[in-house]
């Protein structure tokens, strides 16, 4: 059943994907509105699916990869909607919708590996760790999306073809604001999530092995994140440089994720 609702949600998100593809060639207010409403609907179904999954599988819920992907997709939508409510623009959807669609698609595709759970893990901290980290990822995705839009808008303005395609992108400073704020909001989530993870590891293994690839890469990702916030704060880095950093943090996050395949303490097993 959770799959059913997830797939309904997926169908709704597909409208958003269509919007993202069409927006690259021409601006359409109508499609933007339709995509927005389809997304609301998709989020409702998505939430139903998440709740149902939690009831079905109880404690192991978040340790299944597909649930984590599903939750991440949902959180990204939440962040997108918050940005929409504040800035009244669906433009970040051009980047966000495809990411959400892909994540939901993979999540809805079927059973995937479980994370190996050592016995005696402290469940509350584990849930906090996962939820916080995923919220941090979600904000990072939006920030990355905003960076891309910034680059597009900047190059449009530089090329002196205002009013061409993507004419309805928000103003450069508005895009910048979206990216910066989501970065600022995401950073504490990511930090707290990593601390929670460290506590879980400490409690489970008695010590934290900093040479474990998962931990090393997570710290690296966090460092890139910190660097982004720092350069923005002090030197006002934005546009191209901010986009490179956001892309860097994104890649680091992906690598940290893939470390689940070879880490000793944070590892996938086939279900």
């Amino acid at each position, binding site marked *: 059943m959770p799959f059913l609702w997830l797939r309904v949600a997926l169908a709704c998100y597909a409208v958003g994907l269509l919007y993202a593809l069409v927006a690259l060639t021409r601006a359409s207010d109508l499609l933007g509105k339709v995509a927005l409403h389809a997304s609301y609907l998709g989020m409702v179904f998505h939430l139903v699916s998440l709740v149902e999954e939690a009831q079905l599988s109880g404690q192991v819920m978040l340790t299944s990869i597909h649930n984590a992907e599903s939750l991440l997709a949902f959180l990204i939508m939440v962040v997108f909607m918050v940005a929409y409510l504040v800035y009244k623009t669906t433009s970040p959807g051009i980047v966000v919708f495809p990411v959400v669609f892909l994540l939901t698609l993979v999540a809805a595709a079927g059973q995937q590996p479980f994370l190996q759970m050592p016995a005696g893990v402290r469940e509350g901290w584990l849930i906090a760790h996962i939820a916080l980290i995923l919220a941090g990822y979600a904000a990072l995705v939006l920030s990355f999306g905003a960076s891309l839009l910034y680059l597009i*808008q900047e190059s449009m303005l530089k090329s002196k073809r205002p009013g061409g395609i993507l004419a309805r992108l928000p103003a450069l400073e508005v895009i910048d604001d979206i990216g910066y704020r989501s970065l600022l909001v995401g950073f504490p989530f990511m930090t707290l999530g990593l601390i929670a993870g460290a506590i879980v590891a400490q409690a489970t293994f008695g010590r934290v092995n900093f040479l474990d690839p998962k931990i090393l890469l997570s710290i690296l990702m966090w460092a890139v994140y910190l660097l982004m916030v720092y350069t923005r704060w002090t030197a006002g880095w934005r546009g191209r*440089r901010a986009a490179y950093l956001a892309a860097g943090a994104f890649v680091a996050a992906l690598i940290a994720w893939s470390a689940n395949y070879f880490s000793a303490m944070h590892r996938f097993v086939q279900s």
Partner: protein
Amino acid sequence: MKIQLIGVNHNTAPVEVRERLAIPESRLPEALQRLVQHPGVDEGLILSTCNRVELLAGTRNGNTDLRGFLRDYFHLGSSEVEPHLYDYSEADAVRHLFRVASSLDSMIVGEAQILGQVKEAYATARAVGAVHSQLDLLLTRAFAVAKRVRTETAVGSSAVSVASVAVELAKKIFGSLQGKHVYLVGAGKMSELAARHLQAHGAASIFVANRTFERAKQLAAKFDGEAISFSEIYNTCDRADIVITSTGAPVAIFKREHGEMFLSRRKNRPMFFIDIAVPRDVDPEMNKLDGIFVYDIDDLQQAVSSHVSDRKKEAERAEFIINSEVERFQARLQTLEVVPTIVSLQDHLETIRQAEIDRVRGRLGALSPEQELAVEALTRGIVNKIMHTPVSTLKTAAREPEATTVVDLVRRLFNLQEKKNPKKANDNGDRG
């Protein structure tokens, strides 16, 4: 009543002719009064702007000599302006008015000013009583049509002057201009205009630097801004978000390294350079810096002309709207022409009926209530039967082009008096 229109515009007449025919606002009421006193004219409206002079009249028979009115009013010989005049009547006049109000007939298609001017002309004509029934209806409709064109097409949505393009670009960069600072380097007319536009859109403060400091002070005073000595420009320019340059300097004043300096002082917050000087004041290399956007006069001009051609495309769509609105209006007008005739026909026959009853009353003697009713019913029945065919013919004719002929015929057959301009206004409730 028929609608007639006569006029000149920027396409048909050179400015010498237009200024000859222009009627200043102060003399408009008097001119309107003379227009409605002109033989055959019931209602009148005069629109006089720098690009056009138009006389719109509701006339009794549709062949009133409006050219004659112009000749009398301006004491013109017939050869002076006649070749430049256009006249329209009926549907063509309605279409022309709709096009003018919707800004399709403007020099810059889609400019918003003309609608306001038509509204003013209407207000003036209404105030002196020159517009009451049908022209009132027509003008109200014209405003609604203009609004429809504006909302359903993009004919007025893009900026088509250098100053407004500059504002549009600034908004693309900064979103709101609230709290943004503008820096004028060189105190030319054009940069003053652009600054005025930016200020109207919310820009916070204006700095002016000029080689002659006096001139900078004068201009700064106009904007309530701050004059800055020219030697200080590199030290102060980073305070501004938008810089407009228009000096006569032979080489660029702002080079790439200046841009880098500004950016680092501003913590990379974006800057927008509008360079309207020729030769250019800003080195085009500066546009390559992240966060600095440089538009020179050609770039702005190009944006203007691409917007102008966009508007032309939208104007074609607007013409469709106008055509359908003209048809609707004509149909409505014809129905309106028929209704008073039906009413006066009914009144007329009812008067005859009453008069006849009164006349034979004495000879009939005392009647019982039943007999009273029978007489009533008998006479009413006759009247209704007689009226049936002409009324249904009128109603059918209302939808046909020959409505007026039928109306005239019925009026003549029954000898119906034309009521003098029944005062009725605002019955269509959609004044915009």
